[in-house]
Structures are given as structure tokens and as C-alpha cells.
């Protein structure tokens, strides 16, 4: 499918559901593992605002996950049927953005052509790196909209359509991900979450329009990781060539947001320190469409650094702390370029965006109740984000959750504070099968 817009009439939808059901029956006959869940999730905004719907979530979701392990391969097919009452457009399906009543999460096949090689082709979720909700070298697509709306953390990772090759020679392990057509983040657009557009906080009144690189095998991405263990330490080097995953620039002629070219080079280490686990990760972001930093409409190049530590501080209570900094590498040039065009410079971010994060996780009631709170705060931008979640497993099949997404800050334009009109709480009930 060139672009996965399936126009939808009710008969087609019925056909799709029937197809899925008959597939399910076939899978069962072929002795293939089939599992999934049904979930209802509701969320509401804490603040009245005119930019978005009052409800942040009101959706019923059924996930099916079929797995076929064979001596020669492993195949997986996983997708969600979604009845999303808040979405503006519920009829068409866009498998790229996950919009519509069907979201294809996985459709891949894994083979090992050589004893030292694995190959996975198709739609898959890709992750690497060491951060806790901080991603430097993981340039695989994220679904920030789902995450900030309060869907299960599983949905933070959007799928990639990729060829993933892993090689395991003796000296080091090598992963190569080739994505033949750019997979952008499922980023914030204004449809469900309001955001700062450079001049004001806007929402459904100014839904972000993007011009996304879209050509197969031309607008492609490649990501590489080389890693090995030294004692109990895991060391890795990373490279990426592609695009800023969320809009990183603007085309002044059309007013469309764009995804400028980006290359990332980085490294990470993770291992035991004292009675805990430390991690460190760094990356150089080469915004190569504006390497000199004098195009005011394109993101600067950046250097990013993360240091983290996690340990158990009491029985069943774990604490993780991180320090993270993003440095603009050509801020002076960026400001000079803005001034030369008589554009405002007072909302340009600081050269360094410092961030600290804290996560506390507590297991109670025989681990059937999991309480977790993730907090992120930037001392120089004076803004932050708190995400509390409570998950209660009522039985092996039933689970209920409560959660929230709280943003705060002084200004309207800073990284986290721009979302502060979107504060929300949510709850869900899930039945697994």
C-alpha cells in the first residue's frame, strides 16, 4: 500500500472484522498461539479549555496477538481494533499514524539464516538505548500522543516497517535496522493535545500540517548499534541517518511543518554500581540540513547527555534518578538569523535544557498492586511533568488502572509547559485472554 488510506464504508469494515475472525479460527486450527485483551479506557481533562474536547479518552480496544513458533522461523501478527469515541475521524484507517479503527502493531517474520545471524522483516517495534523515558540513540518512532493521553505504556512505541538484521560474531554484536520509508513519531498535532506552535498555544483550531518524507527507498532511514558486554557492563555504539522524528522545522513558504535531515552518533554504557544499576548515554545530533545553524526554520544540531542510577531503596520500593541535558550547538547563529528576519527571539530556548527525572515504583499486595510515579523537571526552563500510575491485577485475567498526566511550568513556550492545558486523568479495565 502506497499510503495506507483505506477508504471505509461499513461493508468494508465488516469484511475486515470477519477476515480477522476467520483468521483467528485458522490460527487456532494450525496450533498457533493466539492471545489478546479487551480494554475500555476513559480519560478526562482537568482544566476547561476551548482548544480540545473535554474527554481525553473514551475508547474500547480489542487486541489480537498471534504467534507462530516454528523450527525454521517465528512469525507474529498483532493488531488492535479500536472504537475511539474522541477521534475526529473514525472511519478511515491510516496504518502509518495509527488513526482509524484498526492499528497494525506487528506483522513480521524472524529467521536465522546463519547461526550467527537473525533477520526480522516486516512491521515491528524497535527499541534500544538505556534511558527511562529519555531517548537519545533510540530513533525509532514514539507515539507521544498516546503516551500523554494516558494509554498503556505499550503504545509509547509506534511500530516501524523495517528490515532488522542482527549479527553475532565473536567480537561484538551488530544490529542494523533499515526502514525503507521514513517512520515519523506519532507526534502531537493539536487534534488531541494542544501545543506551542511558535507563536501561541493552539489545538484543534490550528492542527499541525506536515510535509512528511514519503518515498519508498528514497526517504529511508538506517540505524546501527554495535554492542558487547565487558564483565557485567554493557557497552554500545550507535549511528542513525534519517530525519528528525517529530517535526523539527518549518517550510516558511507553505507554512507546513517538516522533518529535516538528521544523523545521530552516540554511545552508551550500563552496569552495576554499588547496589544499583548505572547508565550513561550520549549522542551528537547532526541536523545536516542546517549544519551552520543559520536557518531559523530548522532545528539546530545538538549534543545530548544522560546519566542515570537505579536501586532498590527498601523492600519492593525502587528509585531511579536521571540527569539529562540537551545543548543547542549553534544558538548564536540561530538568534542572529532570527534577528536578521526581524523575528522574535524571546521564546528561543536556553542553550542547555537541563532535566532531572525521578521514578519511584512500589509493589504492594503480593505484587498485584503496582504504584509508579515518574517525574521530570527542568530547573532552567522551570517546567515539568508528573505521570502517576496505579495498576491493580484483580485476577490473572482482570486488571484495572488509574493514571494521570500532569504538566506544569511558568511559560507557555517551554518544552513541557506548552502542554499544561492538557492535564488529564484516566482509568481502564482490561480483560486478557
Amino acid at each position, binding site marked *: 500500500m502506497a499510503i495506507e488510506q483505506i477508504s471505509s464504508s461499513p461493508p468494508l469494515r465488516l469484511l475486515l472484522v470477519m477476515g480477522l475472525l476467520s483468521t483467528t479460527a485458522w490460527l487456532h486450527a494450525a496450533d498457533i498461539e493466539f492471545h489478546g485483551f479487551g480494554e475500555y479506557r476513559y480519560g478526562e481533562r482537568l482544566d476547561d479549555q476551548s482548544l480540545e474536547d473535554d474527554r481525553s479518552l473514551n475508547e474500547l480496544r480489542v487486541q489480537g496477538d498471534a504467534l507462530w513458533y516454528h523450527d525454521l522461523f517465528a512469525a507474529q501478527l498483532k493488531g488492535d481494533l479500536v472504537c475511539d469515541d474522541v477521534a475526529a475521524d473514525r472511519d478511515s484507517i491510516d496504518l502509518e499514524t495509527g488513526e482509524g479503527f484498526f492499528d497494525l502493531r506487528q506483522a513480521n517474520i524472524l529467521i536465522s539464516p546463519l547461526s550467527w545471524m537473525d533477520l526480522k522483516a516486516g512491521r515491528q517495534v524497535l*527499541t534500544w538505548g538505556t534511558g527511562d523515558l529519555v531517548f537519545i540513540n533510540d530513533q525509532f518512532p514514539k507515539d507521544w500522543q498516546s503516551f500523554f493521553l494516558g494509554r498503556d505504556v505499550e503504545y509509547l512505541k509506534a511500530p516501524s516497517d523495517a528490515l532488522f538484521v542482527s549479527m553475532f560474531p565473536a567480537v561484538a554484536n551488530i544490529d542494523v535496522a533499515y526502514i525503507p520509508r521514513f517512520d515519523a513519531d506519532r507526534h502531537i498535532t493539536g487534534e488531541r493535545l494542544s501545543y506551542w506552535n511558535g507563536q501561541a498555544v493552539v489545538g484543534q483550531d490550528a492542527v499541525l500540517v506536515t510535509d512528511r518524507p514519503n518515498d519508498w527507498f528514497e526517504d529511508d532511514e538506517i540505524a546501527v548499534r554495535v554492542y558487547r558486554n565487558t564483565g557485567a557492563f554493557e557497552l554500545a555504539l550507535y549511528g542513525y541517518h534519517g530525519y528528525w522524528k517529530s517535526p523539527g522545522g518549518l517550510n516558511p513558504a507553505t507554512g507546513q511543518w517538516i522533518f529535516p535531515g538528521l544523523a545521530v552518533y552516540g554511545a552508551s554504557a550500563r552496569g552495576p554500581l554499588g547496589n544499583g544499576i548505572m547508565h550513561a548515554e550520549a549522542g551528537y545530533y547532526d541536523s545536516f540540513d542546517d549544519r551552520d545553524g543559520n536557518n531559523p526554520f530548522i532545528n539546530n544540531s545538538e549534543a545530548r547527555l544522560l546519566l542515570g542510577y537505579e536501586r532498590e531503596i527498601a523492600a519492593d520500593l525502587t528509585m531511579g534518578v536521571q540527569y539529562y541535558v540537551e545543548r543547542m550547538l549553534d544558538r548564536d547563529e540561530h538568534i542572529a538569523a532570527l534577528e536578521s528576519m526581524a523575528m522574535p527571539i524571546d521564546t528561543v530556548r536556553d542553550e542547555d535544557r537541563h532535566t532531572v527525572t525521578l521514578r519511584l515504583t512500589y509493589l504492594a499486595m503480593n505484587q498485584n498492586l503496582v504504584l509508579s510515579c515518574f517525574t521530570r523537571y527542568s530547573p532552567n526552563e522551570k517546567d515539568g511533568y508528573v505521570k502517576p500510575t496505579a495498576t491493580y491485577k484483580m485476577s490473572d485475567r482482570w486488571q484495572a488502572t488509574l493514571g494521570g498526566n500532569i504538566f506544569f511550568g511558568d511559560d507557555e513556550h517551554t518544552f513541557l509547559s506548552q502542554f499544561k492545558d492538557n492535564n488529564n486523568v484516566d482509568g481502564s479495565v482490561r480483560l486478557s485472554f
Partner: protein
Amino acid sequence: MSIRTLLLGVFVAGLSVSTGAQELDADAIVEKANRASYYAGKDGSAKVKMALSDGRSREFAILRRNADEGMDQKFYVYFTAPADVRKMAYLVHKHPGGNDDRWLFLPALNLVKRIAPGDKRTSFVGSDFLYEDVSGRSLAEDAHELIETTDTQYVIKNTPKNPDTVEFSSYTVWIDKATFLPRKAEYLDKNGKLYRRVAASKVEDVKGVPTVMESTVEDLASGSKTVNTFTEVDYDIGLKDRLFTERFLRRPPREVTR
């Protein structure tokens, strides 16, 4: 001594014991029992079903490989039920006397998470078994005393050297003379009251190795109980060291998915 566990007691080595008149001291007995419980064969595999008394259950396949030298071991655990942990994989590089290295693979995120060393006397996957039951308690942490020898069993009393780090004041283990398999362990709380009992309720011979096929732990204070049932137990199946790496966390090996 590590025996209260018996979860991995499935991998029991039938250490041949010279039964003659020769008397073993307590340290030698717990050493043999430790090997019988945790180190049988060069490697092993089993499927485990944990039944919790509140009706919940946990099901997983487990692989184990002993280091070629020394007491280090590697474990790979692949969960098949219930739904919230299904397809999760758990990797442990066990270093007796030190902190274990542990990783957890979360399939929905394709994320390999490193797990910080934890209190070893907290629950294993929400059951009445403790992490230390599963991984083995270091022999050096307790003083061992042979308090009774019957026709068939040694009875060993174990007293922690650092009582502040554990919830018990002592525990007593009944060890089979013939197999050196611990058959029962009873824990006394700080007031000397019996509050916890672990038993090897069924033992069978697998490839000549006496093997615990069912073990039970009872929390006498709360009344809760967990029963482990082992099936498809096997030893010396030639598990490769490379299986206990990130590669196979991300793509479970056929040894656990079959």
C-alpha cells in the same frame, strides 16, 4: 543453606554418597545438598507451573547452565502465563556471594531492562516463594548445625550470621541421606514461632537424578500457599552459553517455545 527453595530443586544431582560409616559434618552436608538442589548435571530445563492459593497462577519454562568452573550459573526464564507476563523473558547471571546480574525483556516494548539488585527475601513473581528460594541462598550467610541424624535424614539447623538482614531467626532443614535432597524446611520468626514451611512433596527419578517434581511453600501466618509443579524436566541437554544473552532475550530460543 539454600534449600528452602526447591524451586530449582528440580535440578537435583544424585551425588553418589559413600554411605559407609563415615560421618559428615554439617558444612559438608549443606554443601552436598546445595549441589543436589541447584547444580544437577551441566545444565537442565523444566516447565514450571506455580499455583497460588488465591487462584492465580504463573507458568514458565526455565533453562539453567552451570559455569564450567566455580559456582556461577545462568538462568533463562520464559513466562507463558498469565497474560500480563506472557512472553516476558528473564535472564539471571548468578554470582553466589555477590549481586546477581538480572535482565527482564518486555516484549510489547521490545525493551531489555536491567533490574537493580533487590532484597533477595522478597516474593518471586508474587508467589509465596522468595527470590532467594529460587536462586539459592549463599551457604556463607548462615551457621549450620547438625542437630539430629535419623535412619534416613540429616536435620540441620541454620542460623543467620546477620540476623538483621532476614525476617527469620533460624530455619531447620530435613535432608535425605541417600539423595541429599532437602525434603522439608521450617522457618522460625524472631519470636521463635514457626511461620513458614517449604516441602519437596514429590520426588522422582529423571535420567538417574532424584528430582523434585512438586514443591510447596506455606505461609502459616497468612494461610497462603504456593504449589510448584515441574514437568518436562531434563538434564545435560547441551545448552550453549550464548543462549543466556540479550540475543535470546529478544527472541526466545526453541528450547523454551516448543
